[in-house]
């Protein structure tokens, strides 16, 4: 087991019934027992209790604050323009093979909805797609809704399981979500996604390399204020999946789509990449997409 194979604080203090999305009360003792880091334990201990359980309102408040801080990572890594470019090429390639209807783009685990709010605020694919952000956490979704309303952005946010939405989904996206799914759960993630029969997907996560834990430490400990944002931000990058793991999981879970690695690592200079992605697109549109996106891409062989 990798030494980074440990849960993030948010994984411990926040638990949901995967099928229903109902929140499960978390005993402080249970969270502490699963925690290997004294730093993380001190964060958990600082959360107020209700009958030995972590107070849900306090947990939500902590998460909203931490997500606000972690938004800096996506801002400073230019994630909005990056995804805009990928989605524009994806939609362009789908239009190229005759898909004419308005497309529904769903952001899985959207948190406070930074990505979709950014895309909407910058008029990316305006009128061509509808943006839907989905997360299990009600407090984060309420925050996302309030922010979208404040800036008059046309994004819909839902408390739901992204793979059990009533409406069909054309494109799935996610940012910093994949590393939360470990082992077989990652394959099940791609299988559940495939069951929704999307036309394409684009999932982004921190680039994994020997230098990632150090880089992530420097970034989060110099910028974040709340201990939760520091620890989870650092660990999420440190335990990011390697390219091999991502490709294997995507291959086994998504037989219908052609797969591409976005920004594959440079073996002799791993520091040169901060984020990576795995992209799937309908086989007939894959070549068009490949030609449209002038970014480093590698086709994933089956």
């Amino acid at each position, binding site marked *: 087991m990798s030494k980074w194979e440990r849960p993030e604080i948010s994984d411990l203090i926040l638990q949901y019934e995967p099928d229903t999305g109902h929140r499960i009360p978390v005993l402080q003792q249970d969270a502490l027992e699963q925690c290997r880091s004294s730093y993380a334990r001190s964060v958990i201990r600082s959360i107020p209790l209700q009958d030995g359980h972590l107070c849900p309102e306090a947990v939500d408040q902590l998460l909203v604050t931490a997500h606000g801080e972690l938004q800096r990572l996506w801002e400073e890594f230019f994630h909005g323009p*990056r995804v805009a470019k990928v989605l524009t090429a994806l939609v362009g390639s789908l239009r190229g093979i005759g898909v004419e209807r308005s497309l529904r783009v769903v952001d899985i685990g959207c948190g406070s909805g930074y990505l979709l709010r950014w895309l909407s605020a910058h008029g990316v694919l305006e009128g061509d797609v509808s943006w839907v952000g989905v997360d299990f956490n009600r407090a984060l979704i309420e925050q996302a809704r309030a922010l979208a309303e404040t800036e008059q952005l046309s994004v819909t946010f839902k408390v739901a399981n992204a793979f059990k939405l009533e409406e069909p989904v054309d494109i799935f996206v996610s940012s910093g979500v994949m590393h939360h799914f470990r082992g077989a759960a990652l394959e099940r993630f791609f299988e559940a996604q495939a069951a929704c029969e999307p036309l394409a997907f684009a999932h982004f996560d921190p680039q994994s390399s020997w230098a990632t834990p150090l880089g992530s430490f420097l970034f989060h400990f110099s910028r974040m204020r709340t201990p939760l944002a520091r620890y989870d931000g650092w660990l999420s990058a440190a335990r990011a999946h390697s390219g091999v793991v991502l490709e294997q999981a995507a291959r086994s879970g998504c037989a219908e789509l052609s797969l591409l690695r976005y920004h594959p690592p440079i073996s002799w200079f791993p520091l040169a990449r901060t984020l990576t992605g795995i992209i799937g697109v309908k086989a007939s549109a894959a070549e068009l997409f490949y030609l449209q996106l002038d970014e480093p891409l590698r086709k994933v062989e089956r």
Partner: protein
Amino acid sequence: MIHLYLLATLLTGFIGFRDAAGRNTKIRKRRYYVECLLRALGLGQAVLCVLMFLAIICRIDLDVIQLIAERSLPIYLSYTGLVLCTFIPYAIPNWEIKSVVTVLVFGPLTLLQPVVIIAGAGYSIYPYWDRVLEVFFVLLGTLFCLCFEYILDKLQWSYRAASLSKAEE
């Protein structure tokens, strides 16, 4: 001494930006950043004025302060130069280069800042230990630089500005 004043002003500007970052979750927030930056610069100027006032009423020997300031300049200017130089690769219009500069350069330089401030102050006052009042005055200035971010954080100006900008629109 004017150099040190300018460096302290630059520092308060940078810290003002840092204090504002990560609090406002809106997408469009240029105005918020400008306001936070101006507030931090204003507070910095006010504190620098108080320091100057203290220097005058305590009859501090400004010639000694000048000598201490000159001695600290190479250290502070090198660090500031390094920080400003990193904006050159950052100006390259490539997201990956910008991201890498953010992680590998801005992060470590931020963490290094208090060390540089303390090292600069320690090195510059070392030959003047016998000038208690002047050394105390320099240490007061150093403490201000070290605590400026903490002070801004405690004042919660940017936190309130972030909440206000949400409520206003």
